[in-house]
């Protein structure tokens, strides 16, 4: 055999690039109708959260004693008014901002923190793994609703404390998933091969572990957003999260409880928003999961 090591430059320029893993995921996701509908709903909600304040039909904070609890379809108040005479439609639109923020932020933080802890536990193994995972087990002994309420109850009401509590609630489950995926990847021969090439743990995690574990952890985290939305609004519903007069769906649901005999359907509207949001995130997450769950 001819041992010529140099190859013509022309052929180097014409390297065929295979489509990567993520473009395949994206294509499959586009074909999933339910997931696409959910994606559109989520997109609308996110747009409302970002730009809702600029397109509201009325001032969401403007209260009026005379216009209290007007029914749905009242002139100028398409979805009626709340117990202080504020326009429901505007408040629901603006409410998307705080509600989504309170629901998504904890999962995002928990994803960052839980992934780091879980990947370290899964990659190092040994006593560090045992210490981390046993601590996680302790937090698993609390049902998530109880833990969230107990934590924010102890810390006191407020947006910041509610975010901290919810983040703490979601770190253990994300950590557990991250640990198990990482431990699986770590036992693969390509990680062994990377160690055999003399690479240190940092380089191996960066090049070989992250790319294979972040996807599954991320999908799991997206499935938590729906739970987080319900819990975050639940905290505000109990008076442990957002404080009046800010528009937030859980808090609105709470303050409108007094109206269930007079304007029941207006009272139910904020909950409907929470429901729509959480079911959309659930379906989005399911779609993402099946788009990524392919034989490799």
């Amino acid at each position: 055999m001819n041992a010529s090591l140099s190859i013509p430059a022309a052929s180097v320029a014409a390297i065929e690039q295979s489509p990567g893993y993520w473009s395949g995921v994206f294509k499959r996701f586009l074909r999933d109708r339910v997931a696409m509908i959910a994606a559109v709903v989520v997109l609308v909600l996110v747009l409302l959260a970002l730009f809702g304040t600029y397109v509201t039909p009325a001032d969401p904070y403007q209260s009026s004693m005379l216009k209290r609890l007007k029914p749905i379809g009242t002139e100028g108040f398409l979805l009626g008014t709340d117990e202080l005479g504020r326009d429901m439609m505007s408040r629901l639109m603006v409410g998307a901002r705080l509600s989504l923020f309170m629901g998504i932020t904890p999962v995002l933080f928990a994803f960052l923190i839980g992934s780091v802890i879980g990947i370290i536990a899964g990659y190092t193994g040994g006593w560090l793994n045992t210490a981390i995972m046993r601590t996680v087990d302790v937090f698993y002994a609390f049902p998530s609703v109880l833990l969230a309420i107990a934590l924010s109850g102890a810390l006191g009401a407020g947006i910041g404390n509610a975010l901290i509590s919810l983040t703490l609630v979601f770190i253990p489950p994300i950590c557990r998933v991250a640990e198990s995926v990482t431990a699986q990847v770590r036992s693969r021969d390509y990680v062994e091969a990377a160690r055999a090439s003399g690479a240190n743990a940092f380089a191996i995690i960066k090049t070989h572990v992250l790319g294979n574990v972040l996807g599954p952890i991320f999908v799991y985290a997206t499935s938590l957003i729906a739970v987080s939305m319900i819990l975050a609004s639940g905290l505000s519903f109990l008076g442990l999260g957002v404080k009046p007069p800010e528009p937030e769906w859980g808090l609105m649901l709470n303050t409108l409880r007094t109206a269930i005999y007079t304007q029941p359907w207006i009272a139910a509207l904020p909950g409907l928003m929470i429901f729509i949001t959480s079911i959309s995130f659930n379906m989005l997450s399911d779609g993402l999961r099946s788009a990524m769950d392919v034989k490799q």
Partner: protein
Amino acid sequence: MRAATPLLDVRGLTKHFPLKASPGNKSGVVRAVDDVNFSVMRGETLGIVGESGCGKSTTARLLMHLINPTAGEVIFEGKVVGSRDLPMKEFHRQVQMVFQDSYSSLNPRLTVEASIAFGPQVHGVSEKEAVKRARDLLARVGLEPARFAGRYPHELSGGQRQRVNIARALALEPRVVILDEAVSALDKSVEAQVLNLLLDLKQDFNLTYLFISHDLNVVRYISDRVMVMYLGQVVEMASTDAIFASAKHPYADALLSSMPSMDPDQRTEAPPISGDPPNPINPPSGCRFHTRCTFAESVCSSRSPQLTSIDETHRVACLMYEANVQHPRSRVNVLKVAA
């Protein structure tokens, strides 16, 4: 031929895996590799054979320092691996490994060229330079870079993936390559192609191979010397011709004669070795093979045989070949007479 210093010298290599205590058995250890000594000469191919579970692969992983040995050391060119003279990272540049499972040993999220270029970058080669080296090596292992460099592992066949793995091992310009069942999972026709590629590469890059396989035909084809392992220990070591012509250790003899012969007259009816290998958690006392050996005597269960030279290149660990041992079938005098 001059008596060269070995390139790789393995001394007293031992690995005991601790067992978790569970109901039914007290905590103990699996003696996966027990006091293994051998050396590898520059430019040779040393074949390592044995039944599954005999410690071949553990030996490979110990050599690569992927797992920490319980005892023993590896000496490369006279320098202790992991010492100040030869840091681990430098050792890994010199000694590389190809794994059996061609799929699991490639990162599914990386393109072929990125997988190959990872190693050189660890050792300070610039990304551009590493990618160029990767493409050169792809061409060298018979994969056209223009077609294969940008592919992902799942788009390749088993043989193509194993070529990529070989290219990755060579990317660090190593002197020794450990091939751990590297062709065992391939189809027979592909296996032959890859074996020939390995022989070519060995010539071109002046490589030394450690070839681990359970396939005796392949070992015979590629190796200069063969080492036979049984239950974590070396039982015999000799040149390929010598050991296939007349293996001395009863186990090695039985193992090598179990090779299916092409000649119908040469085929034996009797099973060469009966029973399963004993449990490495509690290996038999004395010679570990005595429970299955047709020549076993009482001395075999009480005394551990040492690896003894019976000629310049042939070493065997059997009490029948050890001087001053009261074994009724001792071959020591027979050998002396023959000499």
